[in-house]
């Protein structure tokens, strides 16, 4: 199998990778680029643990081949905090509201919610539920995740 040379901009850094054509984007991020914060929970696009931002939009990195991401910009959980390490409002809100327990689904939620609040800075309860309804969490029962999303919206509003 011939490897394909691709170029991805991941968390603002240009990365060149030679990867087999069948390699999933999730595996490429995790094992070729060492960004293991993106997790894989089902490999069939249902759980949302592997959600990353592709050109700013949430995608399931387990449902995408790395080669098809060639030339695109990707943000993973490792790229959400500020360059100086300050956690993003979404990350801070999850810590404040106990929006995570085991943390395995968390990177997917953080990416999803980051995009959600960028597009809708003041979501209603319904919009928050709808916004996170593509991500599974087995620990929290979602109550504190929903609370975290509202709190993140508040923090963003306070800081803008």
């Amino acid at each position, binding site marked *: 199998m011939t490897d394909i040379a691709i170029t991805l901009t991941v968390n603002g850094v240009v990365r060149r990778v030679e990867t*087999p054509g*069948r*390699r999933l984007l999730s595996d490429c991020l*995790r*094992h070729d680029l*060492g*960004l*293991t*914060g*993106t*997790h*894989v*929970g*089902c*490999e*069939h696009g*249902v*759980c949302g*643990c592997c959600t990353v931002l592709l050109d700013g939009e949430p995608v399931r990195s387990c449902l995408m081949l790395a080669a098809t991401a060639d030339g695109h910009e990707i943000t*993973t*959980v*490792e790229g*959400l*905090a500020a360059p100086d390490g300050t*956690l993003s409002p979404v*990350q801070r809100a*999850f*810590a*404040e509201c*106990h929006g*995570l*327990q*085991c*943390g*395995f*689904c*968390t*990177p997917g939620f*953080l990416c999803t919610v980051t995009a959600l609040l960028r597009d809708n800075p003041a979501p209603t309860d319904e919009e928050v*539920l*709808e916004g*996170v*309804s*593509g*991500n*599974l*969490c*087995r*620990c*929290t*029962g*979602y*109550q*504190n*995740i*929903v609370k975290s999303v509202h709190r993140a919206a508040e923090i963003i509003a306070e800081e803008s």
Partner: protein
Amino acid sequence: MTTKLFGEPVRRREDPRLLTGQGRYLDDLGEGAFEAAFVRSPHAHARIRDIDVSAAIDVDGLVAIYTWEDLPPLLAEPLPLLIPHPALTHGRTATPLARDVVRHVGEPVVMVVARDRYLAEDVCALITVDYELLKPVVGVEEAAQSAHLVHADVPGNVGAHLVQEVRSAAGLGAREAIEAAPHTLAFRLDIERSASMPLEGRGVCARWDADDRSLRVYTSTQTSTSVRMAIAAKLGLPLPKVEVIAPDVGGGFGVKIVHPWPEEVLVPWAAILLGHEVKWTEDRREHFVSSAHERAQTQFVRVGFDDAGRVLGLDVTILHDHGAYTPYGIIVPIITSTQLPGPYKLGAYRVEFSSVYTNTVQVTPYRGAGRPQAVFCMERTMDRIAEHLGADRTAVREANFIQPDEFPYDQGLIFQDGRPLIYDSGDYPGSLRMLKELIGWDSFDRTKELAAAEGRRIGIGVGCYVEGTGVGPYEGGHVQVTSDGRVHVSTGLTSQGQGHETAFAQIAASELGVPLERVSVVTGDTRRFGYAVGTFASRAAVMSGNAIALACRKVREKALRIAAEALEADPGDLEIVDGEVRVVGSPGVAVPLATVAVLSNPLRYAFDAEAGRATQFAGTSSFDRPPVAEGEEPGLEGRDYYSPIRSTFASGMHAAIVETDPLTAEIRILRYAVVHDCGNLINPMIVEGQIHGGVAQGVGGALYERMAYDEHGQLLNASFMDFLMPYATEVPFVETAHLQTPSPLNPLGIKGAGEAGVIPVSAVIASAVEDAEGIRISRMPISPSELFDLRRAAP
């Protein structure tokens, strides 16, 4: 001043790394490791005639293929039967790779090791296994009929049979008491299978150091210490040469307490054999078909009661589906049968279970571990009694409650730890009062009438439980203060999201009087603490929490002793505040814990400036006694263990209001209320989170989750597309209230909280749907189509 930390909702220490992608879960480890994949049985019951690997051996990147015949003698034997019990007369476990017969879809047959997982799976696809199909046994009733056998040497498919009976005060057996009762009822109940289903599956990564002849294994487990002993035993290695570490674990909920899994011994074995790191990460389909499930039971109930609804006799016969093997013994049906009485005084109680084999995935504890089934049975019974008498459902429960002045209360049964089932403390009437107020029980009739006037169907349900938590035998804690003033805490049990690093740090900081930031906690790493049992049965806070508190108290006492000498004071006059030992009332007279740590360790070598103060020419020691006095040890550290006389019993009560759609039969939970009593709270934020998560899993079990086996033993819904776990849109907002009746059994007065949320949910939802519909609910989970069918069948 040191702030009070025990009982405060402090933020979690784990979160910064988990929020930034810096957590380390199993599959994040082992860069460059060979990867394993398994050929698993596609049949529920079959004899292996031949395994042909000839098409597979030329795949580029293949490292090794192993079948049962390749295994060394110890490894070729069946895996351990972890919890033997005299009633488990026919316990059976699998060999790590199938020997002659496969007994469920997903059983591992061939292990492949390759350069990466993609290649390993390529190889698996090219291996041909020739099977002779045998008749599968699916479902408890088919198993009980025993027309076919799962294990040829287990007659009737019965692995275990156990009866426990508690006679009435008048000496009547349950059956006699029922016969003599003014009212009797008999009915059948069914609960289907679900599973723990953590979002991270299992996984193992093993590293053999050929120079040191030592093995390091990372595994996504709930018990690293016991995995270590199992690996050492199975691979014939000296225990000190094996270390096992649970890294960050992406959820457990019970399934990861089972050990050693086939992969937990095969992967380290291959790593040693190949002289190269080997790892295996379970994929989702593997998790469905080759880990473990729980819940499935059929219960036959007979109850006799008086006009007030007081239970005079209860007789329950349980058929428990154990799946193909019994590695974890019969803990689940034992818990069902012993936790069934809940908060009630039953006149006489008889419970009998048969645990039967089926050609399906093995059944081992999933959060709640048999209690959801027990509570479903007891609470359905309470509702049936209320219906029969035309009484309020809560009044019937009140009539049966153990009263607050009756503790300790002996239920007369032997619990899962082999010790008497004696409740330590609780306030069940108080709990029900709080719940009724929280949900608005007494005004619900009016709400229901108003809804009915609008053509809406709503109903209210209630469910009560008592949960034995903090089972023994023991856990330990080690606490070390180093010369930089930092406090290092370790305990052997593992963490899967419960926030142990935070809760245990709170305990240590409170006990030692140091700022929280100075405390670090390590769990589940045998390099730091080798003696432990594991994280299950809502036991971590009770067991390790108390062990760490006791270890801290030892350290504190030693620190005061050393500081007293340095300050020329009486230890009784000293306190530790904000990391300083000082004379009470004279804050100026103080010595930092860091210095005490230095003084505790008489040195020859000054490796840094602080250490210089403890060297032999520093003039600090007395010439009349040796530098380390008799009975003392160097270092400011302490180790202690907590081993309880018996379990502590948490309790709680839930209520829900549901709405059912008159046309589509869709069931929606409008409100969900929880009153919870786990004694003293270490961190209320974490306890609330545990309850929320438990309720969500309970809602899954009540309305959505089931393992859809067909008659051939094929699991038809082995993916997240078809096995319906609740998303945020399916879980109600959970309203909580806490009652705190401290446990008298342990120094911190705490009880476990991990499983509580899930336990009564099926009972509560069944009660509420029944109230909304006026149709008896006897089987859970209930889907809209099942409710629709029940409506059509209703008279």
